[in-house]
């Protein structure tokens, strides 16, 4: 793995975190004194991905804009790692006419056809559409792949199991990603799942299954490289499960009283910065510069979003049908 690639992974993670820290700030800024989920510049549920950036960065480093990603209700890190325009993303989250969905989608419903990106607010239900995108790529003679993401809680849904079987049966160019952050909202993995590794489930359906135990962006990068190359070569689907970490709540406002692991969490971004510094790839100055660069891109995007108009109520019925 070359230095430029490692630096690229770091920058992607920092950009994603920088975006979400800005969301966090603006989300809570105007919900005081009585916290109201529907109030403020950014209303509604907000699921942030802090801690899970290594998964998105490691996978999406192998993708181009011609490849598809279907993400979850917690989609920002994959959207950003896959190259989504931050302005269009921010404007959608702020509910503006200039957003990806002209304010009709919101943060769980992001659709960007220019990078074949979509997400779903329904657990595990992003897997089946990815099968169709992979099927279309295959039929159209393209070399593209589809990456489908879920959490470990979703692996107990029927959609997960149906999709694994069908992907293997039809040898579709799909790579399934399971982000195991230990928590399905408040229910721990141990309380929800009968086996330790979803790689085993993948194997049982005839897919190549891998589990990465340490939230390592480079580990993800390695596994994704193999899986995506195999998919592109027509060698069939794979599943990669990553033991990652949910640094913040299930959604903003979640007090997380059910969690007993908050003291043990390792933030993967400073950990990776330390590693790259000790390998002589990063310096404290570079770390600062990368953070500033990310913040400036995010600031631009937020300024664009906040200065954009709201959609017209008179046009609420537009786009129900093509």
């Amino acid at each position, binding site marked *: 793995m070359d230095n430029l690639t490692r630096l690229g992974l770091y920058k992607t993670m920092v950009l994603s975190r920088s975006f979400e820290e800005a969301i966090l700030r603006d989300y809570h800024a105007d919900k005081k004194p009585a916290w109201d989920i529907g109030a403020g510049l950014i209303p509604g549920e907000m699921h942030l991905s802090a801690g899970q950036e290594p998964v998105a960065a490691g996978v999406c480093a192998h993708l181009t804009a011609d490849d598809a990603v279907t993400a979850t209700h917690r989609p920002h890190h994959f959207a950003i790692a896959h190259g989504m325009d931050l302005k269009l993303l921010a404007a959608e989250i702020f509910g503006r006419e200039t957003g990806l969905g002209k304010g009709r989608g919101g943060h769980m419903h992001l659709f960007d056809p220019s990078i074949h990106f979509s997400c*779903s607010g*329904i657990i595990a239900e992003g897997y*089946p*559409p990815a099968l169709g995108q992979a*099927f*279309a790529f295959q039929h159209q003679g393209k070399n593209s792949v589809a990456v489908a993401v879920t959490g470990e809680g979703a692996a107990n849904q029927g959609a997960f199991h149906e999709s694994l079987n069908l992907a293997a049966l039809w040898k579709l160019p799909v790579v399934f990603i399971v982000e195991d952050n230990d928590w399905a909202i408040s229910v721990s993995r141990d309380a929800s799942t009968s086996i330790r590794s979803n790689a085993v489930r993948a194997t049982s359906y005839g897919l190549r299954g891998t589990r990465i135990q340490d939230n390592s962006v480079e580990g993800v990068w390695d596994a994704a490289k193999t899986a995506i190359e195999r998919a592109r070569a027509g060698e069939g689907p794979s599943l990669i499960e990553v033991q990652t970490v949910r640094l913040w709540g299930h959604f903003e406002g979640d007090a997380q009283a059910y969690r007993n692991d908050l003291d043990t969490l390792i933030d993967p971004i400073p950990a990776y910065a330390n590693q790259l510094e000790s390998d002589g790839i990063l310096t404290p100055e570079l770390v600062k510069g990368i953070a500033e660069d990310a913040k400036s891109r995010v600031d631009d995007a937020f300024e664009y979003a906040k200065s954009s108009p709201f959609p017209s109520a008179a046009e609420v019925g*537009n786009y129900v049908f*093509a």
Partner: protein
Amino acid sequence: MVLIDTSSASVSTRRLTTAKAMVEGISQEMERDPSVFVLGEDVGAYGGIFSSTTGLLERFGPHRVMDTPISETAFMGLATGAAVEGMRPIVELMFVDFFGVCMDQIYNHMAKIHYESGGNVKVPLVLMTAVGGGYSDGAQHSQCLWGTFAHMPGLKVVVPSNPFDAKGLMISAIRDDNPVVYMFHKGVMGLPWMAKNPRSLGPVPEKPYEVPIGKASVVRTGKDMTIVTLSLSVHHALDAADDLAQQGIDCEVIDLRSLVPLDREAVLESVSKTGRLLVVDEDYQSFGLSGELAAVVAETDPRLLKAPVSRLAIPDVPIPYSRTLEYAVLPTMERIVSAAKRVMA
């Protein structure tokens, strides 16, 4: 819109069953457009349990006509994903009653993506599915449920009653840039192994043609009352109208053909003329099509009516198995005649 190419010599002579007309529509579109493909359970070698895909596998091969595992969520979502990428899938849900195992993919994904994307992502696909009872298949294989699909924004819903419309609506549905739910009643297909109305065999032009989605058809003109219905009940209503004519009641019969968009104008125009409305619906009565049509009239001008709106629908019970019970709830010709007489009384 021109419904058929009247210069074609074949317009009126050749007769096909509804099933064969549907298949011909699919087949002609598959020839015209390589992005059209068919998937579902038993759509390949079997040709569809209700003959909706007969011969397509032999003609187009296993890369365009695909049997799926019994995994409706997976293959319904697959159809949506393929449509998003520019293909035009025709996906069969064997019985509409099975929607419960895959409804998330239908109403939360297929139906909403275009809206949520602000019009940036189209989902051009046909979800075709068998509906209806009358042959003792019980509560889980006999429902119509079109009201359920029509209720949810983002899905067009078409319900052909005869061979001509079956082909034309299929072609329109395939060419439409939206998800179109195409609901065919088993009793109109002309299947050799099920009782059928004689109108399930009818003239079908050989050339491709479109029947516009959202346009009802006045299948019988009359002056005393309007019967609005769809699907197999159209045939029962026409039979009832013949009977009622002998008793001096002149019925106009409207075949809606589409539920979404709903041709409100056709209903209002007819009711303006007759002043009486009987809705015949093989779907459940409450919260559905019959109430919707009553509202269309009431919201427009209740003074159009000389008599209260009347409804003949499944009376909010699961479809029973035993023949005597099932035929006690289905909108048969005899029950339509009785209901019409009550409207005129």
